[in-house]
């Protein structure tokens, strides 16, 4: 499935939303070393930067 041109941001948990507009929760990434919430938004609308605003 081809997807939108998403850019991503990560926060410590799904209750913490990245600053800025347009973020939607994508899912968690759980590994033996980390557990982070991954957020995504359309880079064609909001820009490519993955930095939290």
């Amino acid at each position: 499935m081809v997807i939108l041109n998403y850019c991503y941001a990560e926060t410590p948990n799904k209750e913490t939303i990245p600053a800025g507009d347009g973020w939607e929760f994508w899912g968690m990434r759980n590994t033996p070393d980390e557990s982070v919430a991954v957020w995504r938004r359309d880079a064609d609308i909001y820009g490519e930067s993955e930095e939290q605003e």
Partner: protein
Amino acid sequence: MSWETKPLLLKNGLPIPQQFDPALDEWVEYTNEDIKALRSELALVKTELQTIKANQLSGDQKVTLSGTIEPQDNIVIGARAVRDSFESFFVPPSTVPALARGVIITLVVYGVTGTFASGEGYQLELLEHAFGSTQAKKLASTLPSTVSGNQSGGIIKVYPGIEKIDNHKYVDVPTIINNNFRVIFSVTGTFQAGEGIDCEVQLRWLY
């Protein structure tokens, strides 16, 4: 034109070697000095021709190329998508450029979600086929990774004579590329609906 009307110099009734001198307005005999000068010029020309021939045979001949080198874009062989399972990208002989000697295969990872145990994650692999799409031999493989953002993805480079490198994410293989190979994206982990690896697989030919 007086040279047309001036009589030639004769000896025993036959013309001798001579040239017309416009300053004197008459024919003058070739001297030994004239002939020596010609021989000297011929010797120089002969030497130059020998040098040119030697350079052509040895490959030292200098040439100048004109035109521009067109930048080569990466070819996408696996379109950007969220993948949560194995996917194979066969590169058949008909798509391999005749002069290609190597290839760079890049796995671009934009984002990663899922649950990964130790040793799980995404990988990039390269297999070459001896015949058709069977009889495969693994040429290179990156180690499983769950990294997203900086230091994510993987690169496999194949080219004869390069230094062999395997640092798990960047693998360099010193050999010529077969004209019949397969790129594999594989991933292990547990995924909720919609989770996976947002990624793209690219290829660039090396000549």
